[in-house]
């Protein structure tokens, strides 16, 4: 007699338990079902019905899938729950790294006067709009209270290069402290590059500083969005981008784009501009609804539908570019795909749950006040101080980070408990954005059915899934995007 048993001996028995999962209707009769860690399955309505009512036969093709994706467990599959717990833990690992992005607003002064800008000041008055040494020291003390092993400091403005002396001061102090405490330090400067000099760039090279620069599209569009004396924002950008790449390093410079009403019909040109300047991807961002953007009605100038059209058209073009042999990525899509295909959370503030505020990022403003996120300080510029956590001059670390408002916001907006999100199949890919909800709807949870945040994300999730279902090649491309980080 053979020692080996035939395959039937190991076949599924058909006696199973349900594991926690959500489902959402895609189009027609198809449903997306996902478990807590984003493993997913597409089934039709009757299969779903059978699955939930435990009538699904082991011979049904979806049975094996559902078991493999941990939507069900056969009696005796003891590892499933443990595996899910492990993956859930990975998903929320970021929590252990409590605040690792620290933004320093070194000045509000700026040489630009962008129409959508929420904060900048056209002023020579350094006293009024620059961070002082004392504030910088106190802010650094807070930074190094963070338990995170990796510390990231990002300089924001205004135009941070206008207060470069303070940047040098902070960088040198931060480096000494990071080295002494054995922490990894990453430094970023967000700048338009218009004021970059060889000296500044060499400093960035020598101190391993990354540059996050702004490019809105072709020359006329960029200059229209970003007026400055001389009307030469684009020309300066192109020249200084090359200098920055040659001195600081090609891969040390990344670009961010802001979508305005004028951008909407021009997404292909914008993408072309990025390709032409040698970028390997673009972030098609929606303009945030804060600050002057709301005040000046630039935000209201386009709605979610219009933005979605812009995004979908852009993504389509990017897919075509890839098919034409030009590798190029869309970063928002990539972040979502990473959440869809891997259990790691890329840690992008808008797609985080619990919400990124105060956890992922904290802002030290030019006047010493501390905000829970970049958006929170923009809100404050509009006289809404809801997410002001305190001041480095007056408050202790505990007072700031154990702030009642911060903790309750995080808790209330947690998607695993928010109405609708808690039963949404897209939840593992989505995030909570309480500041957005607060700014637009007046409460941190946001009524999802009416929320633009939900509408935008849900439309994107549906779109991406549809693209992949329609075209295997697109799915392969998307998998490649998610694998590259």
């Amino acid at each position, binding site marked *: 007699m053979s020692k080996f048993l035939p395959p039937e001996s190991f076949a599924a028995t058909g006696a199973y*338990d*349900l*594991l*926690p*999962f*959500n*489902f959402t*209707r895609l189009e027609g009769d198809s449903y997306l079902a996902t478990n*807590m860690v984003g493993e997913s399955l597409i089934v039709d309505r009757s299969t*779903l*019905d059978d699955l*939930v*009512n435990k009538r699904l036969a082991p011979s049904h093709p979806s049975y094996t899938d559902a078991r493999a994706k941990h939507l069900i467990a056969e009696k005796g599959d003891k590892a499933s*729950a*443990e595996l*899910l*717990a*492990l993956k*859930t*833990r990975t*998903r*929320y690992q970021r*929590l*252990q790294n409590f605040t690792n992005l620290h933004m320093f607003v070194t000045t509000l002064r700026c040489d630009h006067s962008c129409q959508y800008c929420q904060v900048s000041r056209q002023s020579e008055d350094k006293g009024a709009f620059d961070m002082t040494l004392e504030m910088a020291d106190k802010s650094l003390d807070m930074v190094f209270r963070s338990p995170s092993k990796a510390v990231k400091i990002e300089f924001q403005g205004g135009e941070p290069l206008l207060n470069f002396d303070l940047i040098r001061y902070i960088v040198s102090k931060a480096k000494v402290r990071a080295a002494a405490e054995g922490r990894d330090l990453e430094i970023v400067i967000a700048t338009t590059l218009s004021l970059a000099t060889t000296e500044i760039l060499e400093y960035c090279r020598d101190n391993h500083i990354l540059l996050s620069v702004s490019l809105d599209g072709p020359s006329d569009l960029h200059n229209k969005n970003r007026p400055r004396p001389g009307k030469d924002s684009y020309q300066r950008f192109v020249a200084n981008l090359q200098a920055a790449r040659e001195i600081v390093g090609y891969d040390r410079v990344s670009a961010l784009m802001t979508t305005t009403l004028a951008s909407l019909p021009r997404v292909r040109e914008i993408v072309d501009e990025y390709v032409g300047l040698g970028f390997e991807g673009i972030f098609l961002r929606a303009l945030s609804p804060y600050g002057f953007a709301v005040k000046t009605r630039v935000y209201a100038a386009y709605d979610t539908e219009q933005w979605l059209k812009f995004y979908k058209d852009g993504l389509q073009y990017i897919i075509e570019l890839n098919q034409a042999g030009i590798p190029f990525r869309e970063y928002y899509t990539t972040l979502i795909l990473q959440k869809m295909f891997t259990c790691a959370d890329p840690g992008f503030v808008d797609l985080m749950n619990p919400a990124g505020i105060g956890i992922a990022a904290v802002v030290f403003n030019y006047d010493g006040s501390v905000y829970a996120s970049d958006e929170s300080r923009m809100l404050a510029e509009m006289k809404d101080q809801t997410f002001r956590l305190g001041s480095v001059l007056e408050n202790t670390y505990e007072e700031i980070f154990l702030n009642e408002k911060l903790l309750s916001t995080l808790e209330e907006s947690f998607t695993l408990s928010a*109405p*609708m999100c808690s*039963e949404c199949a897209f939840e593992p890919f989505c995030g909570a954005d309480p500041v957005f909800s607060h700014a637009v709807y007046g409460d941190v949870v946001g*009524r999802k*059915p*009416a929320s633009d945040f939900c509408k935008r994300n849900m439309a994107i999730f549906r779109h991406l899934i549809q693209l992949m279902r329609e075209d295997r090649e697109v799915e392969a491309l998307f998998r490649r995007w998610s694998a590259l980080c």
Partner: protein
Amino acid sequence: MLERVISFDPAAYSLETIQRAAYRYIDKFSIGFNVKEASIDCILQFDKEVDDLDGVIQDFRKEVLDQHLRARIAKETESIRHLILAHAFSRTGLV
């Protein structure tokens, strides 16, 4: 204002299930309930912008079915869900 009444069988669907389904339609209609022994009557008052009433109602009925299934999953998996979360967060000290 446009008003419609639709009914569900209380033996098959709980009021909570119907309420949950209705939440998703906040931006389309407001809802009132008349719970009777043999039926739960829902009085839907539609917002002006909604033109395809029948389409929305049909969608809503599907949503109620979906909510019914969700309730089943939730009930069956509640304990294991807690187990998983407890396990996952056991060392982070945040939950």
